[in-house]
């Protein structure tokens, strides 16, 4: 054993959830920082908790009072529209207020440290903080300094756990389960927090991965980042990557991350755009997911984006459901308490069956 690993080097750590000792299977989450430390059971629990939230979204009157009087701080230190609105909508549907901090107006621009900024936010007494930041590990860092729950809404090129949850929910709704699938991820994998979170989540359910994109965005170490036993292979050609795929996750080509030696756009389109023709190489009915924002004509052919296999808009809808479930679990009365009630109560006797 590495002696350094045994040494008490730091307080806290990144353990994101603790198992309830009760017979009824439910979990309480202190923070949601990453998919990597979660167990398959915990993930299934989160997906199950999202089901009633999906129901609520289909209801004509979408607002609940479950979290009335609670507030969520949305601390987005990196520009974001859809994720921020998704969390704000989720909070509002549960009756919670949200406090907004945006990078452009943030005092960080005036030289304040991140820690001072979040301590200031914390002093306004939110019940939970949702944060996005362009540096990896920042949610983890902030969580070590705050008492309230922290939800990671994307940290640098590390993880984007709620995206992986909404992707898994979307896949499970369409295909019936998320076990043992062949998943192909296309694009700049090295710099993708979406890819990492999806690998950590789906990898715990026996999914196999093919990662495909330009070679400089595919470091060989990616093949080792999954859970033990998870098969991850790299491919630099689409034909090899798409064969037998059940699910295709198309990543956005991040123009702003083109500080790497840029690949000419035309080359990317020629080699890696997901076209109708290429989609035929995957299994019939293979799902196409995209975390958005999508650049039509670059990483994806518009015909595929709008086609029957595309799940893009369901992903957005499910994003709100997943985030409602998380906010409820982290700020609401814990479901195992006698007077807990709330949307999760109906799942009280559900026991996830994980193979």
């Amino acid at each position, binding site marked *: 054993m*590495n*002696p*350094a*690993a045994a*040494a*008490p*080097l*730091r307080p806290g750590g*990144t353990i994101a959830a603790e198992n309830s000792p009760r017979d009824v299977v439910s979990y309480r989450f202190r923070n949601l920082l990453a998919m*990597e430390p979660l167990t398959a059971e915990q993930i299934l629990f989160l997906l199950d908790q999202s089901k009633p939230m999906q129901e609520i979204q289909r209801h004509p009157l979408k607002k609940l009072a479950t979290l009335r009087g609670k507030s969520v701080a949305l601390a987005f230190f990196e520009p974001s529209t859809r994720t921020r609105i998704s969390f704000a909508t989720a909070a509002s549907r549960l009756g919670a207020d949200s406090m907004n901090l945006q990078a452009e107006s943030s005092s960080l621009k005036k030289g304040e*440290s*991140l*820690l001072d900024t979040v301590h200031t936010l914390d002093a306004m007494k939110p019940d939970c903080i949702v944060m996005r*930041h362009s*540096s*990896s*590990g*920042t949610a*983890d*860092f902030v969580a070590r300094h705050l008492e309230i729950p922290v939800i990671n809404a994307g*940290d*640098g*090129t*590390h*993880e984007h756990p709620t995206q992986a949850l909404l992707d898994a929910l979307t896949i499970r709704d369409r295909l019936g389960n998320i076990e043992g699938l062949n998943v192909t991820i296309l694009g700049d994998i*090295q*710099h993708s*927090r979406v890819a*990492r979170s999806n690998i950590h989540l789906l990898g715990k359910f026996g999914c196999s991965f093919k990662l495909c994109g330009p070679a400089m965005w595919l*470091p060989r*170490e*990616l093949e*080792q*980042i999954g859970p033990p036993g998870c098969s991850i292979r790299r491919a630099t050609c689409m034909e090899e990557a798409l064969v037998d795929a059940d699910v295709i996750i198309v990543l956005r080509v991040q123009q702003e991350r083109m*500080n790497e030696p840029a690949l000419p756009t035309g080359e990317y389109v020629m080699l890696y755009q997901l076209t109708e023709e290429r989609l035929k190489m995957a299994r019939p009915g293979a799902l196409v997911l995209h975390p958005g924002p999508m650049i039509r004509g670059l990483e994806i052919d518009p015909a595929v984006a709008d086609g029957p296999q595309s799940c893009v808009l369901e992903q957005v809808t499910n994003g709100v459901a997943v985030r409602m479930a998380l906010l409820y679990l982290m700020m609401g009365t814990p479901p195992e308490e006698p007077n807990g009630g709330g949307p999760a109560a109906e799942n009280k006797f559900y026991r996830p069956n994980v193979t």
Partner: protein
Amino acid sequence: MLWIKNGRLIDPASGTDSALEVLLNSERILAVGHFAEISHEVANRGGECEVLDAAGWIVAPGFIDLHCHLREPGGESSETIETGTRAAARGGFTAVCPMPNTRPVNDNASVTRSILERKASVRVWPIGACSKESKGESLAEIAAMKKAGIVAVSDDGRPVATAKLMRQVMDYCRSLDLPVIDHCEDASLAAGAVMREGQTSVRLGLRGMPSAAESLCVIRDGLLAKLTGARLHIAHLSTKDSLEFVRGSRMHGCQVTCEVTPHHFTLIDEDVVYDSNFKMNPPLASREDRDALLEGLADGTVDAIATDHAPHEPASKAVEFDKAPFGITGFETALALALEQLVHTGRIKLMRMVELFTTGPARVLGMARSIAPGQPADLTIFSTDHAWTFNAAESPSKSRNTPFDGREFKGAPMATIVAGRVVYRR
């Protein structure tokens, strides 16, 4: 006079490892010998002397740290020469070599002199800059700094970017008989990186620098040392390729020496978490590289253990991993980590470890280091089994940036003697 009694004297210069006592005055070592000889000597010199009982402890030549940052002038919120050298004394060091990356840069004799005038607990042997303001454009006033007291040159932290300037520095320093120390790093490969490239950097989504960023520059410098005949010293060497090149170039007659830090032989990239106390440059290396360093420490390829003590005030480190400055403190944990990783594991003998802290670094600087009559009265007395816990909050350093806070150790400096004076006593 100070009489050090009952200790086990280890002196790599003469290969001595036996129960011998030492008598010092405020300048020099007066005598080394058995009780009877020293008693006689004391009586001859008037009989008045202080006694330090070193029973159960090792008495070694004074430890030298080839690589540290004392931050003064310009960075006094992180460290001063006074606080830094107090921490050095607690770590058993009797002489430390501060790098020139202060504000202003130590690139001229007046800065060198101002450093040497400061109050210090241990000897301060400054390292001067290679180039003006360490900008890598034109030569610094190296000869004048040598006259003022520098022991080597380096643009540490801002490595000399062009081979042409490095060649000029080497040519010039050869004529001045000064070693050239380089923090080897290819700036283009290292740009933006915050840790070593590898599985952990990919998993954590942190930008990594490949080990080649260091080794490329080691190879460049090695070839230039061969071309110029200069004495080249590789700072904080951290990769297997660099080490193999150093080994090979010695066989070709180049004067290349190297140092390794305690954190590089103790920790690896897999230990990195989102805590800026694990962010240093060069970054923690792969397991394979670390194992090669351990081998190099054992087989003689590595000349010295150097701390790269790099204090940063708490606020500057309590930021996003990407934003935090590189570096950790190192004086007070160096000996304990060397004992833990190298001696207690059986990898090297105590004699070799003492060499890495004393005669090794002295040789890099072209000096001698031994416990013999006439030598400077600098000694490090340490225990190999004293149990203690490192508590960074108790450090005299102004900074707390260390991944070893709270670590339990076996073995520690017990007394540090500089110019015959006990500057630290545990």
